[in-house]
């Protein structure tokens, strides 16, 4: 009996810990947003961070997008031609990418590449007392170090998701039209007819912005909150990747439900 209550107490404590952490992270986000003036007034700082989060993620995003698109081409063709609908391949590839795979997979890749880098960097700055040094020099470290990284992530994510989708569609085109021989005209025209700018593309962009906010928020918070030791920073980096990935998948479900089903049941 004592063990059960101990387990329950342990669970209760974990839940309250997580809730407390969530509250703390929310206050952190609000403070960050309020003090974001510097990130925009001195846009140079944000530009530098866009380089590190966005530009350096380009290769992995483009290559992954290309491969995902090519696989979609192969798998899609295999299934569609069974129902004589192989000309709908363009539609399949485009909708899968623009609505789901682009934002989600690009988000996951972003979390593991850029998100973990941000956490490690901020955590390490904290561990080597650079953050304290900045504080003692009367420079707000959240405004100077954290906020530019946050906005860089939020701005980079939609661009990376769009690049992922574009690369994927190109990959699907390569496989479907060039390799397998689906009619080029049908590929593009059916795609254009079926993909709606407002419904599909805009919603995909909205998703990627939401994911960008979530991933970067988690990344900067974990970095700033990490215990100032080597072990603490490495654990925080892992937590960033895991929590961001789960957040992306959960938010994807919520957003998809809101955007693609309930909204237009007419």
């Amino acid at each position: 009996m004592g063990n059960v209550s101990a387990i329950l107490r342990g669970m209760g404590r974990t839940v309250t810990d997580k809730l407390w952490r969530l509250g703390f992270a929310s206050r952190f986000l609000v403070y960050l947003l309020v003090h974001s003036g510097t990130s925009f007034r001195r846009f140079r700082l944000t530009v530098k961070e866009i380089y590190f989060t966005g530009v350096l993620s380009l290769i992995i995003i483009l290559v992954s997008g290309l491969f995902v698109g090519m696989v979609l081409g192969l798998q899609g063709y295999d299934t569609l031609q069974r129902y004589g609908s192989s000309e709908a391949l363009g539609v399949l590839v485009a909708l899968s990418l623009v609505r789901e795979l682009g934002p989600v997979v690009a988000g996951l890749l972003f979390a593991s590449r850029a998100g973990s880098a941000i956490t490690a960097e901020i955590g390490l700055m904290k561990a080597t007392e650079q953050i304290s040094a900045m504080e003692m020099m009367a420079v707000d470290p959240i405004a100077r170090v954290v906020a530019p990284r946050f906005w860089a992530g939020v701005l980079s994510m939609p661009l990376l998701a769009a690049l992922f989708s574009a690369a994927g569609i190109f990959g699907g085109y390569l496989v479907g039209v060039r390799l397998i021989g689906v009619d080029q005209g049908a590929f593009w025209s059916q795609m254009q007819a079926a993909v709606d700018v407002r419904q599909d593309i805009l919603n995909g962009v909205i998703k990627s912005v939401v994911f960008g906010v979530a991933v970067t928020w988690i990344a900067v918070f974990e970095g700033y909150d990490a215990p100032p030791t080597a072990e603490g920073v490495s654990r925080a980096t892992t937590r960033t990747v895991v929590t961001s990935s789960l957040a992306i998948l959960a938010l994807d479900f919520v957003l998809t439900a809101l955007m693609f089903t309930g909204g237009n049941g007419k």
Partner: protein
Amino acid sequence: MADVDIVQIESLTFAYDARPILKGIDLKIRRGQVVAIMGGSGCGKTTLLRIIGGVLTPTAGSVRVLGQSMGTLTQSQLYAQRRQMGMLFQFGALFTDMSVYDNVAFQMREHTNLPEDLIRDLVLMKLDAVGLRGASQLMPSALSGGMARRVALARAVALDPTLIMYDEPFAGLDPISLGVIARLIRKLNDSLGATSIVVTHDVQESLHIVDYVYFVSEGRVVAQGTPAEVRESTEPFVRQFLNGEPDGPVAFQFPARDYAADLDGISAA
């Protein structure tokens, strides 16, 4: 006169999560002095420095720095205070993504509107004062420990602060660098007309350069005086500290059970 005191601390108490760290500190630092705060590791001297810098708030007691009571400041007041202070962190804490030049120029660029060529002159002057004018384009990762410490020193005095604080400035340095830093601390203090607080446990170097010493042990000031007074002191803690004796008021053994009982316990298991 009261306003000659740059730092005035009375009955300062500080506890961290119900664990008392400072148990009633009384401390006065006059303008122009270089004061050492010495003690063993974990005695609370770094905490004291953080309270003076406004990073931590005292649990009880009064802390007045540059005429302001530190416990009640808003963030902008605190930042205004800090612009008159400079701090040298243990191991330097240089910004690793910037060059030596940018590190020293940091405060000038953040807090002033000086044109770049004027900043250039100032940065090179500060670096020259610490002997590293030729290293201005290096990155912190390319510097040795002693050099990094000196750059951090140049950075700390970039805006000619009124109060300069040093957290273990001699830690981990070779004898030559030790001598250099010690000399710089004194020289900069006098040439800038500033006041300096040096938290350290390096006795020999500090006694050469400071005007006054406070000894802190277990959260209290156990001894104080000029270097000459300290060398003559008969206070047991001071003697143990100065002579490096392994046992004395600061015990060798961490509190533990009776030795025999402990051994028996293990062998019985």
